[in-house]
């Protein structure tokens, strides 16, 4: 049986890795859109605006037995509802807007002339992305990653709805604190709270030192 701390770390790290790539991908894709830019932006930002329980409810509908994705996965005997993977999906969906928006902002703040100069010099678009855009947007990407991780560790509403609160399987620190308070076990709630706060502080220190090294 896994402890809430382990489940929280496992889901947050998995979610952060997925969101990191998805966020950068969507940020790059949206700035290069010629049409429907506003629509794409609205769809990607929506999970940040909606109440997390509503996001969780939508995820239940999509991944449930009658949902579009749920039905498809059932053919392979896979059901995601109330699993730790569902907790990862919830965390990804709610943290993606943060990663996407921060990265997009960092891309848009790059000096356009630098990218145009690379183009006139004959540098391919993919090389421009990997060698110029990513390295010069690294602080924004780092900031997005920090926000993503903190949002993922604190994720509660959507996780409750979609992954449930099954001790040892899907119970994260946030949901465990809620359960402990419900059971009037304030000592346990306090312990988890301290653990969660410590986790966040350690992560921030780790990221800031990485930022110092990256920034030289």
């Amino acid at each position, binding site marked *: 049986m896994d402890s809430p701390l382990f489940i929280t770390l496992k889901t947050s790290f998995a979610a952060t890795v997925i969101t990191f790539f998805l966020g950068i991908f969507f940020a790059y894709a949206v700035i290069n859109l010629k049409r429907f830019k506003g629509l794409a932006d609205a769809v990607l930002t929506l999970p940040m605006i909606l109440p997390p329980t509503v996001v969780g409810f939508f995820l239940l509908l999509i991944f449930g037995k009658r949902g579009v994705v749920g039905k498809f996965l059932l053919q392979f005997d896979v059901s995601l509802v109330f699993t730790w993977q569902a907790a990862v999906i919830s965390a990804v969906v709610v943290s993606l807007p943060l990663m996407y928006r921060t990265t997009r902002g960092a891309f848009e703040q790059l*000096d356009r002339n*630098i990218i145009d*100069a690379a183009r*006139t*010099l004959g*540098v391919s678009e993919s090389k421009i992305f990997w060698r110029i855009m990513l390295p010069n947007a690294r602080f924004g990407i780092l900031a997005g990653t920090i926000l993503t991780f903190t949002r993922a560790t604190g994720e509660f509403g959507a996780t409750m709805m979609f992954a449930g609160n099954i001790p040892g399987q899907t119970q994260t620190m946030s949901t465990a604190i809620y359960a402990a308070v419900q059971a009037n076990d304030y000592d346990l709630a306090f312990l988890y709270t301290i653990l969660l706060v410590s986790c966040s502080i350690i992560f921030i220190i780790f990221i800031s030192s990485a930022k110092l090294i990256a920034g030289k």
Partner: protein
Amino acid sequence: MNLDVRIKKILRDFTLNVEFSVRDEVFAFLGASGAGKSMTLKIIAGIETPDEGRIILNGRTLFDSAKKINLPPQARRVGYLFQNCALFPNMTVAENISFAASGTASEKILKLKKNLSRFKLEGLENSYPHELSGGQVQRVALARILASHAQLLLLDEPFSALDSHLKWQLELELAEVFKIYGVTILVSHDRDEVFRLADKVAVINVGKIEAFGSKHEIFRQPPTVAAALLTGCQNISAAKKIADDKIFAEDWQLTLTVKKIPDDLKFIGIRACDLKQTSAAGENIFLLKVSRVIEDTNSFIVLFENHIHAEVDKSLNSTFPIPNSSLYICLPADKIILLRG
């Protein structure tokens, strides 16, 4: 080496509509800021797309709206020196130069060495752009273009960010770079810079080429008010032809005698340095009252009450003109610029 350009693009404030050809020469666009100079360069480089037109470089069609050809900037082989140089901030000087260099690895090393020495950048290979001075940044940007496969060089206000003493040094170096490229296009609002560097000049005003020709021709006889102003003629007056050889300059309140006056004359101009002080009255000589005198580095700028101003060389005139005094000033007929609009 030749370049043929005919482009049209509707912009927010005006329509850019330019057509010109350049053959083995340094060609300069002289225009005020926002006249469409930079936009023209960006369209040639492929950074901006025109609404219609055709761009042909050395027989290669870069853009043709009728044939639906629009090469990406990567395939155009047009080197563009940006106003701010746009070095890659995450790369060292050596990496900036080699990053887009064409050829095999050993050719790239050779090109790097050649360009480092050509632009006196030895010892700075491992520096980052933020550690360089303005002049060094500019030289790295030029070296980077020379190491690429560019066939044409476009310079967008190359000296605007430099101190005047650095400007001079870079200008000398640029003149050398121009010899490598058959065709170079320079964009500037600085008439002296244009005169020193270019062979041919086009004056561009609100999206249109108003004057086009050799620099001597354009600077001697600018055809329009905008061209006159941009080539440094600051005295401009609305004018009317009142007789076969007489013009009345409305803003100056003077009647001038000039030969071969076109009927549709609207303005006349004269350069401040072409006004001469004389001792007695005569043709085109007027007694003008001095309203202000400004001492410049090498000359006195004398403002008269009728809004004309003259530039008097300090070495020729040891006496300082006194405000409120009156001077005999000659506007030589051969120096008067006749403008149709």
